[in-house]
């Protein structure tokens, strides 16, 4: 029966408006992400302005597209899962309102999902055989959270950033280097041509006994390097700077993950979030883990960033576990923490 269980996922917590249909929790039938749709070609200009965060305008077209691509109708759906936090209250409310309407009109359960938990489930979509206990690093423009869990649904945040998220540091450094946008992939690409040891940059908190991270000071160190080099009238070697900066971030992330995996005695380590697509992070971590006979997992790149397939998947498993539907009084929780 579960194979026929179709979950509609809805995600609108930050920039992206996304809807997806997932069968049986792990099979993605469609996953529509607003920034990746060629709206003009599709609608011939019916959607006039496609800026980010236009959730109200984009929600219905995105849901329609998700159903059409999956080849299903509202009547086929078994449940609707929606992100209710953390995020921006305005965007969250648009998604929640859409989800409530669909759940009520079609008499199917409404399942409330934590956005961070969604990112964790992206790994279980890409690797259906994966089993906890695991250590998982969710690392993106907005998050740098190190988690440990023995059971799905029961997460322990063991470390997080105390200032900037790692992805934010990538974006800001790329901006001042004029490396291109989005910053993460631009630096990753540039770094391949540079020397990671060319410029001496700090590794904040790498020897700190906690699992917490800090990237604000590293960002400032890069800015100081750029200013000083310019003041001396010298040319900046962008490839070397990108490589050195990326190496500093990856060294810190790797050190903390390795220590966490060791302390918790786990064999499986997961990456999730947009920065999980960084090639240097994947390679270095894979190498270090392999030395210890441990394994690294990360989602396919298309479900690393914010998307609704991971929300549908998390919603499906929450529903299977608890059979607990959210009420129609479900509210947005902008500061939602894992485990609430």
């Amino acid at each position: 029966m579960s194979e026929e269980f179709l979950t509609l996922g809805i995600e609108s917590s930050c920039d992206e408006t996304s809807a997806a249909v997932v069968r049986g929790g792990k099979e993605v039938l469609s996953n529509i992400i607003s920034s990746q749709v060629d709206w003009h070609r599709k609608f011939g200009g019916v959607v006039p302005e496609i800026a980010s965060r236009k959730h109200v305008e984009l929600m219905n077209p995105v849901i329609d597209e998700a159903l059409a691509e999956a080849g299903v109708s509202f009547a086929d759906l078994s449940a609707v899962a929606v992100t209710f936090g953390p995020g921006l209250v305005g965007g969250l409310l648009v998604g929640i309102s859409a989800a409530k309407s669909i759940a009520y009109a079609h008499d199917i359960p409404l399942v409330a999902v934590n956005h961070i938990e969604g990112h964790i489930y992206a790994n279980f979509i890409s690797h259906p055989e994966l089993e906890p206990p695991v250590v998982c690093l969710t690392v993106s423009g907005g998050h740098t959270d190190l988690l440990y869990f023995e059971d799905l649904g029961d997460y322990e945040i063991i470390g997080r950033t105390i200032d900037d998220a790692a992805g934010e540091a990538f974006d800001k450094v790329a901006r001042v280097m004029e490396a291109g946008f989005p910053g993460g992939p631009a630096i990753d690409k540039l770094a391949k041509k540079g020397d990671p040891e060319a410029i001496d940059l700090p590794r904040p908190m790498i020897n700190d006994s906690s699992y917490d991270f800090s990237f604000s000071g590293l960002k400032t160190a890069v800015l100081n390097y750029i200013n000083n080099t310019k003041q001396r009238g010298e040319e900046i070697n962008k490839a070397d700077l990108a490589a050195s900066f990326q190496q500093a971030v990856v060294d810190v992330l790797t050190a903390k993950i390795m220590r966490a995996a060791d302390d918790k005695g786990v064999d499986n380590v997961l990456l999730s979030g947009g920065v999980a697509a960084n090639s240097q992070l994947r390679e270095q971590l894979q190498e270090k883990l392999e030395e210890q006979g441990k394994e690294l997992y990360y989602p396919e790149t298309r479900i690393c960033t914010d998307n609704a397939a991971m929300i549908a998947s998390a919603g499906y498993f929450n529903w299977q576990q608890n059979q607990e539907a959210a009420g129609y009084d479900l509210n947005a929780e902008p500061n939602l923490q894992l485990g609430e």
Partner: protein
Amino acid sequence: MLKIKTSSEEETIKLGKKLGSKLNPGDIVCLQGDLGTGKTTFAKGICAGLGVTAPVTSPTYKMVNEYRGELKVIHLDLYRIHEEDELYDLGFEEYIYGDGVAIIEWPDKAGSLMPDNYLDIHFQGQGDDREVRFIPQANKYIGLVAELKQDVDFNN
């Protein structure tokens, strides 16, 4: 105008904390300066001065972080805003004209939605040295800045 120099992250936080403890419901504080000049660090201090115990992190990605201390604190970052229109989608005015304290980084991106009355704070500097300038953009902040000056003088 009040000019204060700090020479470490800790000092910047301490200064922010002193300001935070003097803020009142409805106050708006704008933080201006280049990347890496200490705006978010100073905001951490303001939050600490207002009794926020939750970890204060950069709001760049989410654009808004909300905290609760003795007052509600709204920490906004308009760095990623490209056009004024996006501020309506964000609910910018609902956020800043509330009964708590609003801290706005990159306020110049607000264009015509920029509030009329606020405490303007500018950051510049390199390495560990920072110069923080306080410019009251409303009468109610003149006394507050004078008080802050006394406080800082007294402690030095």
